[in-house]
């Protein structure tokens, strides 16, 4: 393993901002993994740190397969993470809306350009991603339908689900999209939580990435097969929207199997505790996404369900 400083920037008064890279093996640029790009992506950073830890052990055991280079960037935004901000510390811009970046542009465009310069040209790219809504997901692989995506490869992670979604206009500036446009097979791994560490889903995520590397013959470390992934489109998910606001009293969470009519959650009056709304499962299925903040707005996505 070689630890490198991939990018440095001076701050007026804070310590220098540095992006660290951990490089394993030599040869073909095979796989690049990017962790936290937002300051609240603690779970994503944790997953990356576990990948680095595992790869160090795998390297010491002589189980990196020769001819491959692996690059891991666990954190690209600790300037925000260290002060509990989600977006760039100074101007609140989102690094993951700046790709492919511009090295003469604004600060976060420069950071994106530096990251992209280092992670492009790899055969596979993996980003540990988070969602803009607070909640938990079943760990899954996400790919954008750019015409370049290869679903077969996405199944090599052995996660229960692969979600294919149509890009929206702003997606043209995210890392995953630009990877694909520049010829990298790009995957986003959603590992459950964001601003808290969930050890179980984190382990599912880093195990799946090691499984992918094993399946692609980048490392030789047998893992159990994992799941035979179910391929989903956005439209395959049944969405439940809150018809009331109040305190969310959740009874089911991501990953739970449910039957039509099951009570999933209650929305309670925040003053009297009275039940304002009982949220019942509209179908048999598995909960793919669950809102999990204690307060809920009206007309907010509460659950997304994979129908059986």
């Amino acid at each position, binding site marked *: 393993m070689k630890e490198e400083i991939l990018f440095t*920037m*001076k*701050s*007026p008064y804070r310590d220098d901002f540095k992006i660290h890279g951990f490089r394993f093996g030599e040869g073909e640029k095979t796989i690049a993994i990017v962790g936290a790009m937002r300051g609240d992506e603690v779970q994503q950073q944790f997953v990356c740190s576990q990948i680095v830890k595992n790869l160090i052990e795998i390297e010491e055991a002589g189980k990196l397969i020769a001819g491959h280079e692996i690059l891991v960037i666990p954190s690209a935004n600790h300037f925000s993470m260290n002060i509990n901000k*989600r*977006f760039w510390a*100074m*101007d*609140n811009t989102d690094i993951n*809306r700046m790709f492919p970046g511009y090295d*003469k*542009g*604004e*600060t*976060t*465009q*420069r950071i994106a350009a530096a990251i992209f310069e280092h992670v492009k040209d790899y055969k596979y790219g993996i980003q540990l991603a988070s969602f*803009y*809504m607070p909640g938990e997901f079943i760990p899954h692989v996400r790919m954008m339908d750019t015409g370049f995506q290869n679903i077969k490869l996405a199944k090599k992670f052995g996660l229960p689900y692969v979600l294919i979604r149509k890009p*929206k*206009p*702003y997606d*043209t*500036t995210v890392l995953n999209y630009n990877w694909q446009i520049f010829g990298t097979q790009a995957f986003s791994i959603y590992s459950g939580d964001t601003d808290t560490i969930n050890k179980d889903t984190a382990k599912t995520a880093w195990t799946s990435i090691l499984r992918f590397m094993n399946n692609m013959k980048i490392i030789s470390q047998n893992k159990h097969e994992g799941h035979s992934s179910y391929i989903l489109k956005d439209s395959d998910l049944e*969405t439940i*929207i809150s018809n*009331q*606001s*109040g*305190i969310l009293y959740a009874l089911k969470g991501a990953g739970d199997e449910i039957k039509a009519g099951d009570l999933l959650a209650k929305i309670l009056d*925040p*003053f009297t505790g009275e039940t304002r709304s009982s949220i019942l499962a509209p179908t048999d299925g598995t909960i793919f996404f669950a809102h999990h903040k204690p*307060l*809920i*707005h*009206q*007309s*907010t*996505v509460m659950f997304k369900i994979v129908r059986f």
Partner: protein
Amino acid sequence: MIKTIISEGLPVDEQLLIRKKTIRNGNGNKRICIVTGTHGDELEGQYVCFELIRRLNENRAFLDGTVDVYPALNPLGVDSVTRGIPTFDLDMNRIFPGDPNGHLIEHTAYKIIQDLKGADMVIDIHASNIFLREMPQARINVKMSAKLIPFAKMLNLDFIWIHDAATVLESTLAHSLNVIKTPTIVVEMGIGMRITRDYGNRLVDGILNMMHKMGMWNGPVTKHISKPEISNRGEVFFMNADVSGIIIPSVSHSVDVRKGDLLCQIVDPFEGTTLQNVLSPVDGLVFTLRTYPVVYEGSLIARIYSEKPG
């Protein structure tokens, strides 16, 4: 009449309310909409709403048609000094055209578009951000420029910036309206968290002038409408900081500069040294100037419009 176009429950007691003021007179069927407060820290539009409604109230008889004023598309943000949508940390101007079946903010965006749809003109007023001061200007996508420039010229602005079509801008309110043939002009002026009364008065004069030319207003109109520079006759230069430090400005906003003029210095207060002398690369007009002193490498310092490229 004040009409509520969105009312959705917040967790405890309160409703998220988005409201508009409708002023109507005569039999004319023309309608213009003034929208602002998408970014909760941009407040220049507040004065424009106040002053326009005040003048219309005083001279209602001269109005022939409908003026809808939406002072706060992001009321939670305006009332809490938050640029984005509080709790979601989302830029509201990146979620349009919204989705009727989507999340709260997506269907809020959808309803806003439905409410504005069909207007004869929408003026979407922005006030830069807390870092940069902007000369009163219109921003127009090159694809819409033929239709919108004649209207932008009526608004009493100093500059019309025709920008390239960028996919990321497709999720703005203005773009989403323009593609459904509701003409929308973005006005940027002033600076975040402040009101520049002079700019506000100028834009109100401009809006009344436009209404007059659209046949909706036969009341008093100022004779002195500014003739804006139009960016497609020259080139816009971006000046970004080479180093992190503190900025000490040397020129003021909205001035003409010569190539080589000192725009500002980036200094190191610890050492008492100058880290960078920022020089103008061209003869031109400083239409954007940073006022916020702390910069990182890459922070935008100024934008200069130059008629003679190079």
